[in-house]
């Protein structure tokens, strides 16, 4: 099309970013399918759900929100549980993930084997950790109680604890399952972070006489700040909206002791057939997730553009 002027410009190719203007239709045709998908599969349903939240028995209004935010004690309880669940899950996943990442980033025999095995819990279908730990925690025939008997925690005549059947331990049990399920994700990200730290810094510090603890505190930890932030955000988001683990282990019980927002939304939508209120709770959940979500987007876009 403009071949002659192309030949003139060739020597400058290395410096020009785009030496030939591309017709505007091309980007559109490339990008259109996924934008269409995003609109149809995400934007539209979310908008629909949002509109649903304003539908009340008496027509359009904000009654659902008033109910969720002011009147519904269960919603507030579920909110507290969700924060507890997410917080302790993330803390547990971080500690466990970081420990394993540290072990895997240093000298360890059979390191590849360790790495593969530590990654396994994360590969499981969402329901499997829930169901497995439910069986482990089973009050009558679960293996946890059996172990506790054998190590002497229970006396012969003690009644075994029904971990999922009592309100004080149900949520904690789900958190344990979630930590087990989620720590490999943390481990992968943190390991990548550890492996990208410049080893020369450690050598220089060792020459200066810094011991292992100082090297960890002054070099490792600060270098891990960025990736830790992203990892914690993603883990928080995942735990905050978790449904499968809690639903399969306790369905929010007993007596709402482990009710989290996701299970509450499900209950309202499909057990109480109150889709409008369920959507309201869901939208509130979405709103809360926009904070860590927005932070994640900002962190990612910033480093992408650079």
């Amino acid at each position, binding site marked *: 099309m403009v071949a002659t002027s192309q030949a003139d410009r060739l020597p400058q*190719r290395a410096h020009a970013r785009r030496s030939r203007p*591309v017709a505007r239709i*091309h*980007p*559109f045709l*490339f*990008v*259109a399918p*996924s*934008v269409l*998908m995003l609109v149809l599969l*995400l934007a*539209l349903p*979310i908008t*629909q*759900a949002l509109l649903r939240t304003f539908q009340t028995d008496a027509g359009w209004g904000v009654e659902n929100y008033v109910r969720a935010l002011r009147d519904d004690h269960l919603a507030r309880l579920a909110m507290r549980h969700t924060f507890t669940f997410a917080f302790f899950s993330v803390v547990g996943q971080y500690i466990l993930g970081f420990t*394993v990442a540290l072990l895997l980033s240093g*000298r*360890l025999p059979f390191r590849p084997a360790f790495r*593969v*095995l530590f*990654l*396994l819990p994360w*590969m499981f*279908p*969402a329901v*499997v950790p829930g*169901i*497995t*730990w*439910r*069986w*482990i925690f089973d009050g*009558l*025939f679960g*293996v946890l109680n059996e172990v506790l008997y054998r190590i002497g925690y229970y006396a012969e005549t003690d009644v075994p604890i029904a971990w999922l059947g009592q309100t004080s331990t149900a949520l904690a049990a789900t958190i344990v399952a979630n930590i087990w399920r989620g720590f490999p994700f943390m481990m992968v990200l943190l390991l990548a972070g550890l492996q990208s730290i410049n080893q020369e810094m450690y050598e220089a510090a*060792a*020459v200066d006489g810094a011991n292992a603890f100082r090297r960890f505190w002054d070099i490792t930890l600060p270098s891990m700040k960025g990736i830790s932030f992203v990892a914690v955000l*993603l883990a928080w988001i995942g735990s*905050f909206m978790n449904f*499968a683990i809690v639903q*399969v282990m306790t369905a929010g019980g007993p007596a709402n002791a482990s009710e989290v927002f*996701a299970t509450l*939304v*499900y209950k309202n*939508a499909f057990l109480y057939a109150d889709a409008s209120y*369920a*959507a309201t709770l*869901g*939208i509130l959940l*979405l709103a809360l*997730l*926009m904070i860590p*979500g927005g932070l*994640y*987007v900002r*962190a990612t*876009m910033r*480093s*992408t553009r650079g």
Partner: protein
Amino acid sequence: MATSFEAPALPEPRRLSQDSRERFSLALRVAIALTLLILTLFPMYWIIISSLKTNLETHSLPVTFVPKVWSLNAYREIFERRNFAHYLSNAMIVSLATTFWGVAVAAWSGYGFARFDFRFKAGVMAFVLIAQSFPRILLVIPYFEMANRLGLKDTYLGLILAYSTFIQPLCLWIMKEYFEQIPRDLDEAAMVDGASPYRAFWDIILPLARPALGATAIIGFLTAWNEYEFALVLTSSEKVRTISVAIASLIGEFTTEWNQVMAAAAIGTVPVVIVFLFFQKQLMHGLTGGAVKG
């Protein structure tokens, strides 16, 4: 880590205690690693062991760590009486279809996002990223109603569309990131000869993106296979029920045959573990490259 750097300068006696300190720290690392590994693997051991017990033994005390009576009853039951082969194939069909479509759109559009700038690009990119924070349990509500209205309940198409909700943004981002790393010179070299951008994409760039295509496909497949919420809500009969829903449905209201539940869990997990073991490298590549920056 830096001891080889120091060793030549140290006098004999110090080197010995350095050695034993190193050996101690290595022993400590191995001990901790093994302990954590046992804790990590025990639930998996328990799944397998429980699935090989008889139903009676799972409801007896004391709980046995090795079955007194080894039995394949659980597996027999779930395949012969409970139709699990059907659920496995449903999950396979839906996961493969979603993955294929997801990767295709992601590669095609990801190229567009990587190469071209246009007015709302940043906004769309931000939307793709924030979509990861959309709670699925919220999305199931409009999906449920739409599926009912459009007759997509209990259909493969319905599930595929629903799964695409969260798989497409993920795949798109990974492909876009990968394409951005391929130098533009290659495209432009192809287009200098008069080739269209589509030719450049198909003939030159796409073959280079094979590792990313692999990673995206694996991540997509794993995400689809492991899904629960949409499958639970959008299927009511056995017709297109997936393995996740089937496993959970084995928990009875009054009694539960735990050996069968564990057998189902094992069966449902084996495919993804196989995929994982064979494609680890691509998987890790895609995850750390696509999900995280910096």
